[in-house]
């Protein structure tokens, strides 16, 4: 029972992560993972700062959506 709940929760987390990638939403956990992998010594951005940074480059100069 415990294992099944864990499996369901794992599936849900993964599904939500996919949904975030499809709509272009920020994924803070993935950023933290990347940061731990590649910039292990330094302090990662806080959630607030990460979102502000994300939004400013995502809706930057180029067109993100078509007509």
């Amino acid at each position: 029972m415990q294992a099944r709940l864990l499996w369901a929760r794992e599936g849900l987390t993964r599904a939500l992560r996919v949904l975030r990638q499809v709509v272009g939403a920020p994924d803070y956990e993935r950023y933290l993972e990347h940061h731990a992998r590649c910039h292990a010594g330094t302090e990662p951005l806080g959630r607030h700062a990460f979102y502000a940074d994300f939004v400013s480059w995502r809706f930057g100069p180029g067109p993100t959506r078509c007509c």
Partner: protein
Amino acid sequence: MRRFLSGITWTAVGVLGAAGFAMLALRRGETVSAAWILVAGVASYFIAHRFYARYIALKVYALDGRRATPAERLSNGRDFVPTNKWVLYGHHFAAIAGAGPLIGPTLAAQFGFLPGTLWLIVGVILGGAVQDFTILVASLRRDGKSLGQMAKEEVNPVAGMAAMVAILAIMIILLAVLALVVVNALKASPWGLFTIACTIPIALLMGWWMKVLRPGRVLEASAIGVTLLLLALVAGRGVSLDPTWSRWFTWTGPGLAWGIIVYGFAASVLPVWLLLSPRDYLSTFLKIGTVLCLAVAILILLPPLRMPALTAFTDGTGPVFAGKVFPFAFITIACGAISGFHALVASGTTPKMLMRETDAPLIGYGGMLMESFVGLMAMIAAATLDPAVYFAMNVPAATLGPDAASAARKIAEWGFTLQPGTMEALAQQMGEATLLSRTGGAPSLAVGMASILGGVMSGPGLALWYHFAIMFEALFILTTVDAGTRVGRFMLQELGGYVWKPLGRTSWYPSILLSSGLVVAGWGYFLYQGVIDPLGGINSLWPLFGIANQLLAAVALCVGTTIIIKMGRARHAWVTLVPLAWLAAVTLTAGWQKVFATDPRLGFLAHARSLVGSLNTAAPRMIMNDRLDAALALVFMGVVVVVIAASAREWWLVLSRRKAPVVHEAPFVQTAY
């Protein structure tokens, strides 16, 4: 054995597709089921993807699964993120899907369902999907460079400048025409306007939620936003029935135009996280959800097509917009068949997220096929309407006359019967005051969608489905308007920076206000002219949009051809040259006819001439507007010719070995996967 089975399967798919086309093209007199459009389309898409896309991937671009993509080499957890190909497919499709594939086919249905359907299927396979795929691969190999940069570097600076002009021009026209569609859909519609007006405070709430209260929680905020939006949709019925509230939300065309202009300016200068970003997420969720629901509903219902395969209007006497089926069917349907704007998106976020080069065919080619499928669904939705109702809704009042009786008489002249009381009953069913002459494509699409969705799920009632469809379209059109204004603003700031340095500083407020103001003034002007145009505005603006869009596609295909030739694969360059030649023929013919045709319904200058000496007080302004539209069309035609000439020169120089073919790709690095 496996090859044998594969051969059998694909032959079967081919036969099925051919049967679909045969049913569509050869049946006369009996109603054809929408199923045949789906069969012909889907079978063609699968075959094209399996054979043509694969051929282009292997022989033309030599995509290499062992080559590290920029997502892998430059991975930064932000924009360069290797993404699973199916997830990226969804992401790319969500980026390219918009109002275009819905409106274009709806308008083109005036020729009957066959021309539009054939163009949607054949055009995307040979043109649109090839273009998207080409630009995606080109940008992928150049670490995510944009179309303008590639045009400048790979072709020559003239082509780069032409690309910039084309992009800015298409942006202005696109925003004007989409805003016009929204104005025509929401005028004198308190329910619709109330629901759309609610999206602004809802977006502000979401913005605050995602920035201040629960940073970065987009899914949460979107769930709240969608729920509130659906509540606003339901509340809209109450608004439309209450005398005071409905009066407050009943606006005229010019009033709405000013409203959208003010909104567009405000949304593009306010911080992105406050309004633009939440609206983008809200509309993306709604877009994906609605497209899925519509697809499922059409598959379940398989409604019969009541519009004939070909109408008499292929000869150019069409009341929805003027022009013969060639070239105007191919101009009216841009997104869904071939759309230059997609080249901008295909060189945007997607190339930076490809995990492997060999994923590109699915995402670039396949993504556009899906968009074409959306176009097919819109064509089905338009063709399932009673043709008399379709024309009653899409033809401007200047032609139909002031009331249902005069409309019925006019429609009878065209050979269709509008039963008395039909339009009144339909309007009441949909919760609107009137549906006559609601031009722009959105209301008739909404009626079609409401009957299809309502046919499967009758619970909510047709009026709710109709207003849901209107809301869904208006929401993501307005999101395109504010995002597009922002993109236009960045471009103007970049150009302005060459003239006076401080203008180029993107966060300097005076520069922001000035450039946003200019962009909004640009599309606002065309929007306003379209709103007061007695012919409804779509008549003149949509062809200009189509021409501009295909001009940009021509630029993209020129870049693609140049790259193919420089890669030493000139004998395969026909894959981009064939659609380029077609586009040039269509765009230049259409542009020429819009400027020089002697029929005042078709030619801008002829229309201006017919107004000279008119007693109408608006005549001088309409004459000036006609001349401006003609000038714009000439500019577009000029840019097409310049780009093709500049590119052709490069091709000749390289092919005759007068110039060494230098390809500016990123160096080959072996993948670690």
